[in-house]
């Protein structure tokens, strides 16, 4: 059995496997598939609760992932923000010495969530400028704000 605590290297290695077989487009295609088939919980929460659905979704996942983060919701302003001070996934990959992480690992966070949220009427900003320090941020805004 593969433990859920070993998933991040498993995921990284899956991206590498796909890229080796079919190039970058195969990795992007997989991320789109994951977004369409695996993120129904985020999709349904946002449909039901509006932007608060983002809070409900990430409040569970980031706590279970033991992330180091600040999360803010302003429903009146239609804005949700995550400031990831230290991403547990990227942090693990950066400290692993015996495997070579997939170099574009963090891009999946841009494609997966954007693909769910934009069709529901939100903008999605992903700042990946500090991923070399396992830090990033996302801002989700209602389009009418």
């Amino acid at each position, binding site marked *: *059995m*593969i*433990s*859920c*605590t*070993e*998933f*991040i*290297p*498993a*995921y990284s*290695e*899956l991206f*590498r*496997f796909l890229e080796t*077989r079919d190039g970058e487009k195969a990795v992007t*295609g*997989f991320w789109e*598939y*994951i977004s369409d*088939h*695996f993120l129904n919980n985020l999709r349904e929460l946002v449909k039901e609760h509006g932007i*608060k659905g983002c*809070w409900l979704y990430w*409040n569970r*996942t*980031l*706590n*279970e*992932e*033991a*992330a*180091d*983060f*600040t*999360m*803010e*919701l*302003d*429903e*009146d302003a239609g804005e949700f923000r995550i400031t990831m001070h*230290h991403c*547990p996934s990227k942090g693990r990959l950066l400290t692993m010495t*015996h*495997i070579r992480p997939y170099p574009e690992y963090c891009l999946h966070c841009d494609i997966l969530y954007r693909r769910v949220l934009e069709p529901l009427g939100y903008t999605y900003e992903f700042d990946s400028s500090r991923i070399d320090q396992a830090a990033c941020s996302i801002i989700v805004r209602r389009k009418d704000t």
Partner: protein
Amino acid sequence: MAKLKIDRQASDNTYLHKDFHSALNTGLEYLETHYSEQAVRDYLRQFTLAWYAPLTKSLREKGLSVLREHYERIFALEGGVAEFHETPDDLQIDVHENPAVTHMRAQKIAISPLFVETVRTVGKTLCENTPFDAELLHYDETTGRYTQRFYRRGL
């Protein structure tokens, strides 16, 4: 309308996100439908060779007790139930409650018929270039219960 803010540090929580089992299941499903069943096995072999390289090295140097310790740790961490029967040349693991399958069933996730390969292929690959081999004696696709045996080759 809510205005909420939380700050969390890594030390505030335990790292145990069981939805990752479901995400891995989705990955296997993708490989099977977009490539082939063999692609699932090839990927799991590649992952095992890379990620578990230190474990395989320890298996080669110290024997089956390292596998027992590895799996005992995982099942304890995830709340699984497993029995271990070990001799210097043989380790049998009887998994009575598989945390991955139990979690996915509770979430009503359709489990890939190739999820069994996370046990079979991973076990066989762990033993590559060691004096040991692995066989899956039993696997219940519904519950995820299984019996896996690691043994010294040639006995």
